[in-house]
């Protein structure tokens, strides 16, 4: 391994490759800030540039830099404007945006940068150590387990809901799942629930829904009830993290980097599930008084998804590099680029072309470091976005939500759907329905149904639930996750009514 490391260092530290990392990170960060252009589309746009370079290591290094930059850029827009452009950063807006509202935008971005850095770096170390062994574990997961894992992910949403909110969270999740069934399913190729409208044939767009659920209601609330986005004294303050805060988030970052990495290794799971599960887990294991803080600007609630999604991005390179199986849309595009460069990822890659394998790993370290160095000094300027007067900021937020939906689908009907759902989401927000579960249900719905159908076909029925112990175990965890909060709430009410616990 040491030999491999040295090869990697040698390749990655050439002037050309260092420039590639810096350029990739910068391009990724700036384009990633525009909602609507996620890592997948940016990498797809960069592929012609990468391929024309001819050197596979340099191309892969550039693309990896773009990938990291885009994930960080995406968190910037979800923290500052509540407009998550990438599914993996939706969870960052839960606590990042409230922090920005309290005038702590600078601090939130700093935490995001540090958590991403730690997540990416720890992920890269784990990748280096475990890549060969993990590839065999990833193959143990069948579609039945993926289905069960997604059910666990959705049940963890019960953790997002406070006491007495579980039914609302379940409704919203179900609505998300229902919306995911609109359009053509991958396994059936029959249009479903399109009401004969051609534009619904391909289903609702993710970006459209994300903008309608988060950015648009938020902008409308700002219009309805003008509030200063800046702190009380009109200044962006609290750039630095105090010692106590650093102490509080260190274990969170550590745990979530490891957990996120292992979730990222599973093909199909990826950064999105990692960030939601990371958020839910940290919320559940936090002490009671800190649990109240989650969703209202908790630093732990921001650090958890940020480190988890970056670690998961790194983890998703494991199946790509060792098995040649892309675990996510982004890595699928990377796979395409690799094949175009005459490199076939797979078990032989580490043996045949070690310089590619190791230089990618080294460039992950460098990419993360470059991101941190580039972004920390830029944060005060990025946070100044919020200092733009409201009369200009709101039209621009609205414009970017519209552009995000338009660029993705190139379809003006999508904009009407966006406005329609935005109004519905605002009404739901008035009635205190949580909106995040709907989006999570929508994101996971398609994958969940595909895996469910696949295992149904493999086992010719639902026998897979009890014939595969791992599936059964995961589903049992899911049931517990849903029941536990309502049981807790009932016990708390009983206690408040003066009934003894009985212990």
């Amino acid at each position, binding site marked *: 391994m040491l030999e491999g490391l040295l090869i990697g260092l040698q390749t990655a530290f050439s002037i050309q490759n260092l420039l590639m990392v810096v350029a990739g990170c910068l391009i990724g960060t700036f384009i990633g800030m525009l909602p609507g252009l996620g890592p997948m589309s940016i990498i797809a746009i960069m592929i012609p540039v990468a391929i024309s370079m001819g050197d596979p290591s340099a191309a892969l290094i550039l693309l990896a830099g773009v990938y990291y930059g885009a994930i960080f850029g995406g968190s910037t827009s979800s923290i500052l404007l509540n407009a998550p452009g990438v599914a993996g950063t939706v969870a960052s807006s839960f606590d990042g945006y409230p922090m920005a509202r309290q005038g702590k935008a600078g601090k939130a971005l700093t935490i995001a940068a540090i958590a991403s850095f730690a997540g990416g770096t720890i992920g890269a170390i784990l990748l280096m150590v475990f890549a060969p062994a993990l590839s065999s574990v990833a193959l143990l997961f069948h579609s039945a387990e993926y289905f069960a894992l997604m059910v666990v992910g959705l049940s963890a949403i019960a953790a997002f809901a406070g006491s007495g909110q579980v039914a609302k969270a379940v409704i919203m999740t179900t*609505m998300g799942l229902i919306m995911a069934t609109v359009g053509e399913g991958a396994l059936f190729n029959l249009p*479903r629930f399109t009401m004969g409208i051609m534009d619904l044939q391909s289903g609702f767009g993710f970006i459209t829904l994300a903008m309608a659920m988060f950015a648009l209601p938020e902008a409308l609330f700002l219009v309805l009830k003008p509030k200063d986005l800046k702190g009380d004294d009109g200044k962006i303050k609290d750039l630095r993290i105090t010692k106590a805060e650093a102490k509080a988030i260190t274990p969170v970052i550590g745990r979530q980097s490891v957990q996120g990495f292992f979730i990222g290794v599973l093909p199909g799971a990826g950064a999105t599930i990692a960030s939601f599960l990371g958020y839910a887990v940290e919320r559940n294991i936090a002490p009671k008084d800190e649990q109240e803080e989650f969703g209202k600007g908790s630093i732990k609630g921001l650090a958890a998804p940020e480190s988890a999604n970056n670690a998961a991005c790194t983890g998703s390179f494991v199946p790509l590099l060792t098995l040649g199986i892309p675990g996510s849309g982004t890595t699928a595009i990377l796979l395409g680029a690799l094949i175009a460069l005459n490199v076939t990822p797979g078990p032989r890659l580490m043996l045949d072309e070690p310089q590619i394998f190791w230089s990618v790993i080294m460039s992950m370290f460098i990419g993360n470091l470059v991101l941190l160095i580039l972004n920390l000094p830029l944060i005060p300027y990025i946070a100044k976005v919020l200092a733009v007067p409201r009369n200009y900021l709101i039209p621009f937020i609205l414009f970017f939500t*519209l552009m995000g939906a338009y660029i993705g689908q190139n379809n*003006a009907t999508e904009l009407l759907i966006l406005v329609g759902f935005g109004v519905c989401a605002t009404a739901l927000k008035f009635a205190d329905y949580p909106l995040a579960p709907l989006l999570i249900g929508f994101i996971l719905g398609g994958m969940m149904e595909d895996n*469910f159908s696949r295992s*149904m076909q493999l086992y010719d029925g639902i026998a897979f639930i009890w014939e595969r112990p791992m599936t059964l175990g995961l589903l049992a965890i899911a049931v517990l996750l849903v029941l536990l909060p309502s049981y807790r709430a009932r016990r708390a009410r009983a206690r408040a009514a003066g009934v003894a616990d009985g212990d």
Partner: protein
Amino acid sequence: MALDRWIALILLGVCLTYGYTAWFTMDGSLPPFMQRNPIWPSTFPKVLSILGVGACSIILLGFEKSEVKEADIDYRRLGEYHLGQAISLLVLMVVYALCLRPVGFLIATSSFLILGSFILGERKWHIMLPVAFVATGSVWYLVQEVLGIYMRPLPGVFGG
């Protein structure tokens, strides 16, 4: 009845319609070879409709008690907020969506940005106009020229 239960009622209607489609109308058009499959396109929606109806009824019948907390905006006193501005902005967005193709990106976007800040009460034309034009131009340049995503810049009559 509070707003959240009205919404639950509406969603119950959505779930029932969805369920009706899934249970009764979808399977009719299924090709014979697919009927041998253990899973049909309607299987998953059937499960979802039951789940949705169940969860909606829990809210509707008030089984789950939630504490009433101070909302950010009280919908019962909606008239006291800047409702007019919000509605005009929504109308503006719809108009923008309808005009984007026929009028072209440059004109539609700069008028959207100008009218948007106008609705919010901005009257400093010497700032509004340059900001809108520069922003529109640079976004168009970035998307069309740098990223290569086609957006018709001018009205169709000019061959854009």
